């Protein structure tokens, strides 16, 4: 298959209209305390540290990043399962950052979550019918005698046999359980679904079934997804746009194709080159950028650009200019802002990568 480079750049239409979800300057710090009686505040885990993000109606925004980069925390803050430390969340034109009580409950009808672990996120002592019907009971939107047909309709929608209404979660396989989780999240016809690693616990053949299901449901019900995963191939496949997160901050946002062909942030480049490609010829041709070391601790994140201690780009530049510290001074001192690159692409880097001549796998 030959690869046309030019089309990737042009085919990135900027999403139009008002965003369904807008996150501005969002921060979530978890305090670290010492002592039993007098809980002395000794520091913070900077899980999410100033994130700006928009999700437009009908689109799928993928959020990728490695363990501990704050992607799940971000999802939970957006869902209002955690309170934000700073910043605002706007949903459907309304500021929801400080919603409480009945208002918050009502908001939950419009945004629902699908969790990673289909074994831990379903109550083993409740039947599937009860689990999927719970949102109806909690919100009282469907009269009691109508719940069963509604639930069975949902089960059919996600590809479960409606006759299994009275079965318990343990009687289902992992993939089927994930379908139950999806059905439950759909019960109240939400506008936004936040899916946190919905397929990472599943086998490849089952994973593909669930991904196709999510795609079909989106088309059918006009859903908007915030899709979180660590697997770049999965994220690129399902998403219209992809946001890359590193240590509590967004490093880059672009359409999947632009991101893959012309990553601007060196972290995105390294991340892409680390993904194993199930194609031996391309795998052989690929030049991997192997990052050194581990992700630094979010308790005391590096100054300036958070990626600078591991960044191959700044290291190469510093070497070329004969800077003894090994990194460019600006990377160490100044936090880079998200700046516009290509149409619909933003990256937070002082020295963004140039356009690739080909996709990273064939460079």
């Amino acid at each position, binding site marked *: 298959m030959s690869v046309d480079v030019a089309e990737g750049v042009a085919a990135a239409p900027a999403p139009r209209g008002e965003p369904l979800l807008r996150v501005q300057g969002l921060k979530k710090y978890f305090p670290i305390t010492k002592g039993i009686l007098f809980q002395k505040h000794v520091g913070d885990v900077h899980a999410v540290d100033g994130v700006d993000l928009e999700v437009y109606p009908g689109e799928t925004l993928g959020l990728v990043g490695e363990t501990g980069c704050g992607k799940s925390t971000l999802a939970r803050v957006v869902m209002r399962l955690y309170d934000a430390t700073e910043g605002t969340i706007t949903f459907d034109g309304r500021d929801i950052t400080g919603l409480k009580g009945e208002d918050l409950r009502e908001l939950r009808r419009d945004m629902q979550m699908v969790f990673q672990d289909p074994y831990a996120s379903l109550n083993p002592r409740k039947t599937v019918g009860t689990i999927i019907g719970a949102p109806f009971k909690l919100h009282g939107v469907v009269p009691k005698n109508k719940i069963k047909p509604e639930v069975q309709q949902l089960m059919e929608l996600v590809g479960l046999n409606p006759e299994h209404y009275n079965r318990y979660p343990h009687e289902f396989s992992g993939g089927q359980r994930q379908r139950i989780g999806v059905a439950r999240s759909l019960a109240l016809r939400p506008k936004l679904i936040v899916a946190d690693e919905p397929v990472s616990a599943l086998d490849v*053949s089952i994973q593909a079934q669930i991904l196709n299901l999510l795609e079909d449901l989106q088309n059918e019900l006009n859903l908007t997804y915030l899709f979180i995963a660590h697997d770049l191939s999965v994220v690129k496949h399902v998403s219209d746009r992809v946001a890359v997160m590193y240590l509590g901050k967004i490093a880059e946002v672009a359409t999947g194709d632009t991101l893959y062909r012309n990553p601007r942030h060196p972290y995105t480049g390294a991340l892409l080159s680390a993904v194993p490609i199930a194609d031996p010829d391309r795998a052989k041709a690929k030049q991997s950028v192997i990052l050194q070391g581990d992700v630094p601790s979010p308790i005391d994140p590096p100054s300036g650009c958070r990626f600078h201690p591991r960044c191959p780009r700044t290291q190469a530049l510093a070497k070329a200019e004969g800077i003894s510290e090994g990194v460019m001074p600006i990377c160490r001192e100044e936090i880079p802002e998200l700046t516009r690159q290509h149409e619909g692409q933003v990256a937070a880097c002082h020295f963004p990568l140039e356009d690739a001549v080909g996709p990273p796998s064939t460079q």
Partner: protein
Amino acid sequence: MAEPLLELKDLRVSFPTEDGLVQAVNVVSLSIMPGETLGVVGESGSGKSVTFLTVMGLINRKSAIVEGEVIFQGEDLLKLPVDELKKIRGSKIGMVFQDPMTSLHPFYKVGYQLAETILAHEDVSKKEANERAVEMLRTVGIPRPDQRAKQYPHEFSGGMRQRAMIAMGLSLNPDLLIADEPTTALDVTVQAQILALIDRLKEEFNAAVVMITHDLGVVAEHADDIQVMYAGRVVEFGDVDDIYYEPMHPYTWGLLGSIPRLTDSLKERLRPITGLPPSMINVPKGCSFNPRCPYQFDRCLTEEPELIPLDGHHAAACHLSLADRRKVLSEGVAIQR
């Protein structure tokens, strides 16, 4: 032709349970040459781990029924008494497990755990063993290995722990390293580090490697030969090019159609395999893949297909005629070069 390092002949492993006999491995034959990397691919429950746990002698002989032969360097490991097997395990066959969180002992320092392996197999002083442990940690790229050796596993990150596991697996310079999902619990950037490390050490120590994984990407980049397993059997075997560009088994087609690809520029719909993997107690009659196979015909329901060589050492177990399979293949079920 040189002697294979490891040869499995008609290996069967089953576990009697209250619900019936679980046929975890249902006839597996294979051979691995010195210095080769064999990728073993399959989904959960395909028997890939059990096969190699049996090779390592880590299957409880009392609770499992094991038939066949496991010939390692000319000796049948299944017939060896346990204490003889212990000598081979660790020194000649090293193993790296999937979960670095649970496979290191949380109460002992990492350096001690490494030195213990060396002490158990070689007649060296404690001091010497400790020095070699530190040296191994250095080899696998752990910074400040002398200090790190004195730390406990919880002080290591996931990638570091997996490095320590690899150090342990290679500390006695084994001829064969069995890596069971060595990078599944890790992030991609760390995975790339670990896989590059295994490749480098393989060259350095001239070991053969068995890489058990469900990730078709990992084996495409790091294996010479690939064995695809389904329901306790090998359904296809071949070199990397055979499996990716000319796969000859519908299950392999299904696997390749199921994975989203980074290289696709169009948002192509995935082609998942329908249905679920079978229960190992009640494996379907005939070809075990028949309930999920779109090309299934009457012969598949009754007769079990043999692993038949196609060309070179590419082999597949399927009743479909070669012409039919070539036809399906031309419709683009494999990866296009």
